């Protein structure tokens, strides 16, 4: 046994390696990226784990499902919004079930440190009727990976492990164990379960609902769901929220505590707890899933339930020990200084010399012949161009959404319809809306910012850059005369503006590829 310093993300990665995975599948996304990167780094030496970024989360999920079908263990990694992309495969994999163990580690981002929303993936686990672990610290993150894979093979179901940013990006010492050997190739022979024709799917769905009592019993008996009955004031915590509670408690406190880290919700344990207490505070870092379940539609007879829905805690945002302290009714601790006055904000910005800056300076100028032009954009470093001084883009919704939205605006008669998207985001979710636009010859200008990498998440490999990107764009059937390649550099500013203006004047779909490598990627 050894003790290592690991991020929560890395603990998940190492736990999966030690549980004997043969493949890790992911698309980069904060706060989940470091899970894949850790496994990739470790696997490089022995080269016995397949670790190659996937084009998007759905692809990652399906590749993992294939590996599971073949009898081996696979880890899938994504951020919460990535699961929306993978949802089709995810939901149906609960019906097909698995062969080799398959675990989905999904990192949610309460507080939206680096995301468009703070959706809570526990709903997805509930929705798909699969088990979910919600570890409270780095050690448990490591430990549950073994359990999750065992459970997945025992039940032949995918298992979710839900992390939140704070745990994903926080380090602690973790005790590790011996590595379990990988599974041998043992492809599934159960053809019917993998072929979800309605007649088979009905059988599979019945099976899934039939085994729900087993899942529930596992959660009731789980060591991760700990009930500690003391006084009449109760606190129910989920995942890392327990830490914020304990941080504020004295050793001889009189609270009854139920800490939940394995789902489905262990109803019997919750009932026992609720019957014991008069008043109940619910702490969860995410949506009020537990709170609403416990309260039910008409409230709970006998006990008062407090939490995010009743104002003791804010409805949105990340949980903190300070918010928990306030909710517990404890006095504020004294501090050396107040948070007084306005402190100059220091928002993130594009790096000095970033190619995007030159691309958007040119685009801003090219568009200044229009009255208040709006540019549909996407997700990446270039989203920062929404902020001053550039203020060049005006939307950011979902991976690849820039092209679809610009096309829709064009259908409505909006001119000029411009979409700005990075090379990796294009491969993730931009190719299909692009194909759709070209086939209809929508009057649309797509600016692909090809910086040869996934910049925002730390310069991972991009799937469609350089010659590959050009071929994909050509392959959509677009008029080759309206594929223009520019080099975004200050010295090319005039030429680039001219090219953009020409394509803006063209009535049909055009693509401008602004090609220059991310300077962070070059540094590596």
């Amino acid at each position, binding site marked *: 046994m050894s003790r290592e310093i690991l991020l929560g993300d890395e603990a998940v990665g190492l736990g999966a390696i030690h549980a004997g995975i043969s493949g890790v599948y992911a698309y980069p996304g904060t706060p989940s990226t*470091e899970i894949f990167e850790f496994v990739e780094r470790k696997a490089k030496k022995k080269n016995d784990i397949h670790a190659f970024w996937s084009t998007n989360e759905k692809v990652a999920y399906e590749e993992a499902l294939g590996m599971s079908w073949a009898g081996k263990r696979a880890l899938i990694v994504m951020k919460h919004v990535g699961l929306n992309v993978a949802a089709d495969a995810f939901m149906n994999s609960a019906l097909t079930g698995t062969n080799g163990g398959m675990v989905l580690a999904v990192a949610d981002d309460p507080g939206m440190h680096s995301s468009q929303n703070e959706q809570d993936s526990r709903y997805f686990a509930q929705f798909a009727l699969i088990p979910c672990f919600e570890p409270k610290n780095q050690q448990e993150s490591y430990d549950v990976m073994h359990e999750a894979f065992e459970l997945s093979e025992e039940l032949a179901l995918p298992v979710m492990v839900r992390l939140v940013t704070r745990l994903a990006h926080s*380090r602690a010492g973790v005790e590790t164990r011996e590595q379990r050997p990988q599974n041998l190739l043992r492809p599934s022979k159960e053809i019917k379960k993998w072929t979800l024709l309605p007649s088979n799917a009905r059988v599979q769905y019945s099976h899934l609902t039939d085994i729900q009592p087993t899942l529930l019993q596992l959660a009731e008996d789980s060591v991760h769901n700990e009930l500690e009955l003391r006084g009449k004031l109760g606190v129910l915590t989920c995942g890392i929220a327990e830490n914020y509670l304990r941080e504020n408690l004295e050793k001889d406190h009189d609270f009854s505590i139920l800490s939940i880290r394995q789902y489905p919700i262990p109803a019997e344990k919750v009932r026992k707890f609720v019957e014991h207490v008069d008043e109940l505070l619910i702490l969860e870092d995410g949506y009020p899933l537990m709170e609403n379940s416990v309260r039910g539609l008409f409230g709970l007879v006998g006990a008062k339930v407090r939490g995010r829905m009743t104002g003791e805690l804010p409805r949105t945002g990340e949980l903190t020990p300070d918010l928990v302290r306030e909710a517990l009714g404890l006095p*504020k*601790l004294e501090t050396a200084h107040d948070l007084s006055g306005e402190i*100059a904000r*220091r928002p*993130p910005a594009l790096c000095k010399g970033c190619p995007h800056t030159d691309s958007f300076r040119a685009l801003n100028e090219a568009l200044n012949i229009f009255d208040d032009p709006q540019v549909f954009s996407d997700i990446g470093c270039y989203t920062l161009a929404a902020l001053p001084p550039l203020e060049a883009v005006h939307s950011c919704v979902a991976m690849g959404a820039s092209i679809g939205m610009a096309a829709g605006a064009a259908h409505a008669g909006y001119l000029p319809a411009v979409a700005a998207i990075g090379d990796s985001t294009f491969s993730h979710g931009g190719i299909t809306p692009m194909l759709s636009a070209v086939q209809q010859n929508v009057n649309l200008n797509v600016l692909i910012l090809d910086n040869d990498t996934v910049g925002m998440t730390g310069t991972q490999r991009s799937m469609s850059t350089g010659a590959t990107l050009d071929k994909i764009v050509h392959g959509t059937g677009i008029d080759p005369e309206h594929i223009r390649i520019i080099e975004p550099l200050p010295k090319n500013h005039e030429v680039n503006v001219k090219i953009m203006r020409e394509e803006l004047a063209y009535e049909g779909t055009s693509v401008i590829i602004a090609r220059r490598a991310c300077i962070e990627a070059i540094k590596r």
Partner: protein
Amino acid sequence: MEKNIILAGVGGQGILSIAYVIDNAALDAGFNFRQAEVHGMAQRGGAVQSNLRYSDGELHSDIIPQGLCDLIVAVEPLEVMRYWHYLRPDGWVVTSVTPYVNIPDYPEMEGLLAELSTLPNMVMVDTGRLAKAAGNLRSQNMVIVGAASNRLNFTEDQLLKHVDGLFARKGEKIVAVNRRAFSLGRQTGAFYRGLVDGGMSALNALKLSTKLNPESLAVKHAPTWVEALDGDEAKLTAVLEHDGEVNADAASAFG
């Protein structure tokens, strides 16, 4: 023993390297520790912090509660203010006074330093100057670990071991630069505190410790300066305006 530290700075200034050194020293010492950091969007030149806690007892939260922070270590002076409401009443601040100006409304320096110096338990060092003296402007983060090292629960060697580990990959020269940065920070920080503890005002202590030859600074010289200058602004001005380098052992020449 429990120590709660907020590391503050701007994305790209090497906060995580500071954390690496302290985390590893804490691991060696057998302490429990937790260290929350910022990844993703904010790393692009935004304000970043890391909450670092170590203890010989149990630790729960990854985030330090307001009023329980023992020490703010800042690679940039403005960033102290973003977190000083976490500091406990008797908490300490060890900060660089070298500004990182990447925003249009960066406050004017004199007022900023005056405001910072209202905190009694303060150590201010010019990391830019010391890092340059060490041989690389990028070593400011190690200067500030050095300056903070007197407030941590580790020996100099316990920390330096991990400064070595951190930079080994980049070659001996870089290791040497960062070691030098660490010890210049450590000496300068201790000298500064010596001046303040002897009764000199924070701003004057900063001016004097920034004027003297960094290689010559040692805490033992602090009392001789306090005595020689004797609270006399004119004497301090004479030192500050002296042409050429002044060594730390030259206090008597200005008395």
